């Protein structure tokens, strides 16, 4: 069992995520440079938060062409393991069409950093299996382009196939469609979420519940 935390130029949460996996959970973890395409050693690949390529043009728009990201579809097809995109990672996965919809500028037009409540909408997924259905979890957010949008058809199929994993509870911090905070793909192996579980993975920072998302993924591998 080996995990990869991808490092793009401009990634800022790579070390934070690495710390949770390696130091807190004791998982064999590598920081993997964005040019790497040999992904077979890894059963978990995390695209961390940050500002890959400065978020220029659109968040994730440039990183989605990185060799590593180009290698992901095959990785997913062959069911090699799980891909988790956090914040900027989520944006990259939508730009790469590995996840449906898009993430656009917050309704407020401003960057927003605060702790929000999210509700577990589906706990039958690798990311959430250690949570109760409907459980409310406090997680930090920190993004300027987190407003999830999708066409009516996309939304329909997301609902039909239970791909909506997390919704904002109460306040909708960025104006996301139907309060969507996290989704997965049809195979249930690719996940994207705007909140930062790695930033609430220790009691020092609050409930520490963030770590359970990583534990869920690991327990399902």
């Amino acid at each position, binding site marked *: 069992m080996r995990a990869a935390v991808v490092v793009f*130029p*401009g*990634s*800022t*949460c790579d*070390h*934070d995520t690495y*710390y949770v996996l390696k*130091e807190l959970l004791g998982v064999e973890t590598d920081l993997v440079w964005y040019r790497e395409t040999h992904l077979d050693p890894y059963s978990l690949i995390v695209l961390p*938060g*940050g*500002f890959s*390529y*400065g*978020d*220029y043009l659109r968040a994730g728009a440039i990183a989605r062409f990185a060799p590593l990201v180009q290698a992901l579809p095959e990785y997913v097809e062959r069911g090699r393991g799980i891909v988790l995109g956090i914040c900027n990672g989520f944006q990259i996965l939508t730009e790469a069409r590995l996840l449906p919809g898009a993430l656009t500028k917050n309704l407020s037009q*401003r*960057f*927003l*950093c*605060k702790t929000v409540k999210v509700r577990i909408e589906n706990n039958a997924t690798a990311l959430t299996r250690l949570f109760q259905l409907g459980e409310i979890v406090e997680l*930090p957010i*920190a993004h*300027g382009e987190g407003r999830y949008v999708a066409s009516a058809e996309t939304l329909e199929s997301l609902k039909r196939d239970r791909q909506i994993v997390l919704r904002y509870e109460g306040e909708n911090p960025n104006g996301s469609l139907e309060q969507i905070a996290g989704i997965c793909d049809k195979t249930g192996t690719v996940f994207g979420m705007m909140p*930062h579980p*790695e*930033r609430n*993975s*220790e009691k*020092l*920072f609050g409930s520490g519940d963030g770590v359970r998302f990583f534990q869920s993924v690991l327990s399902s591998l």
Partner: protein
Amino acid sequence: MRLSPEEYQRICAALGRRPNELELGLFELNWSEHCSYKSSKRLLKLLPTTGKHVVAGPGENAGVIELQNTWCVAFKVESHNHPSAVEPFHGAATGVGGIIRDILSMGARPIALLDSLRFGEGAHARRLLRGVVAGISHYGNCVGVPTVGGDVAFDEAYAENCLVNVMCVGLLKKSELKRARAGGVGNKILLVGARTGRDGIHGATFASQDLIGETEAKRPNVQVGDPFTGKSLIEATLEVCQFPELIGLQDLGAGGLATAPAEMAARGGVGIALDLEEIPLRDPTMTPSEILLSESQERMVLCVQAGSAQKFVQVYRKWGLEAAVIGEVIAERVYRIRHEGRTIAEVPIELLVGGAPVGARCDVPMKRQGVGARCNVPMKRQGVGARCDVLKELLRSATIASKRWIFEQYDHTVQTNTVVGPGSHDAAVLRVKGERFGIAVTIGGNGRFCQIDPYEGGVRAVCEAVHNLISVGARPLGITDCLNFANPTDPQVFWSFEQTIRGMAKAAQALELPFVSGNVSFYNQSAERQIYPTPIVGMVGLVEDLGKLVPMGFQREGDLIYLIGQLEGGHVGGSEFMKVFYKAWWGDLDRTDIELERRLLRAMLALTDRQILASAHDVSEGGLCVAVAEKGFVRGLGARLDLGDSCEEFLFGEWPSRLVITVAPECEAPLRKTLEEFGVPYRRVGVVSGDSLEFCGERVSIAELYRIYEAALPESV
């Protein structure tokens, strides 16, 4: 800004000839106020700079103090006032980038930013505020350094000339410390990071003049920051800092290549020869002087051992950055500029760096404005109304109101070290992964105090930072400061500058706190007005055990509320109360009893260590009532205060050396005992209870006050 005739004479005499155009340009930059500190040097020597924790002091790119287990912090505050006044977004953004690279050049990883901002009160000021906050957010968030704290104040004195002071804190092991020096004849000089373009030419001279009649022509090209390149530069540079062949590194700030390599040579006691054609340019048509004077952002100079350059270049290329050998260390102590093989400028290092004549100035006391008399205004007669309404007005004033609208635009949780972020305590606290201790940081300063009494204002600038640190249970260790003043050739301005420094020095000496870094920003004025003398103090402290952190807010109903420190004799001079209700800051300041400050500091450290405190908060803008309300906001807890029918000075005055603390009833005896042990006066002023504030026979709900406190800023921007 041209050189004075005397300065020009000195150069000719020293060179034994007239300098050519290019050499003149070099001197103009190196001898500019911004780079040479010629007006301030003499006075800055008054500040204490030594102490057992000091690893590197003034003169380096940033100060460094040791915390524990060879863990050190590098920190410095710097201003970007003029660029922000001209182009708030990019001005503030490049300010953040610049101070981050100062920290980086010490070999430290930047772990926190703080920003101290001053704006006017009109529509234009709000535009500046929006732009500046967006710019800081843009750069700081993108490079992944959390902005964990700061302070903001509003006063017409800053209407045109806003202040943007940014502090950066970096973490390093003592063994990783780097110096900004060149050495070893034949070793190579590398320029790394972004390409060199026509950005901000004459920025340093621009920073050395005021904004009066500021014209397109006189204004340098706006510098546009590139946080993406800035982030890659951080990672690549921290990577090469592991190479033993790295001899020294230095960021390129105002002055660019005209100053940075020369400073490195001066520190190393060597000379440097540059080959301009080796410099990667954005526009090949740039002239030698444009290349030398360019202030393009996201660049650093490295001095590396001959033969190792390739190794360095590769790392920067990997990160998508430029890296080129642009020169070498030479034995002759000159700064030699070569272009296509020809030497086009050559000047002695010692003359260029630090050769500027240190200005002697006549000092004339400032004209006192407003009424000199201590003013104790019987409010009722002034029709100011009930005390509750006074409190609401104060909480509504932008300087006191919640800064949430600002700090929620800053990523303050990235790097997962922020134990205490903005908004809930007097200082921010960071953990160091794997350690018990924490790092407490704060920044602030009160220009109005200095306008009334610059000496006392200087004392208070240091003392309030101390209060903020001891309130969270931290031991203050070191200071960085940014002195924002108007035109220093104005005798009154210079007098207030000297008084402020003397005040800061006095307080720092008494409290045994070294100034390890700092920055001076002069010419902060417009055609309309001069800014208040505004010293901004950044301070770093050590929380020995994160388990002993002291909260700011009320914790439990029934806890007892104590006011400790200076209990009597205060006035309302210079207070926010005076500004809000009398549209004036006049009135005298009460002088700080520095002996009491010493005792207060020691007492708070003991109380923290013995875990007697339930909460602590210093009394600052708005006075006692505002401090109590702020303590209530954290958990929505109220308080019953028995202040009798105390006068307004007691409730709203901002006299020094006061903290409001709470203790559980069973801790009351140990509290009194400890305070007596250290000789700190105390007075029990009430009890935590319910969800509203009761004082002087009046009653107001905390929820209502909180709504006012939170709504004020969003509504006004």
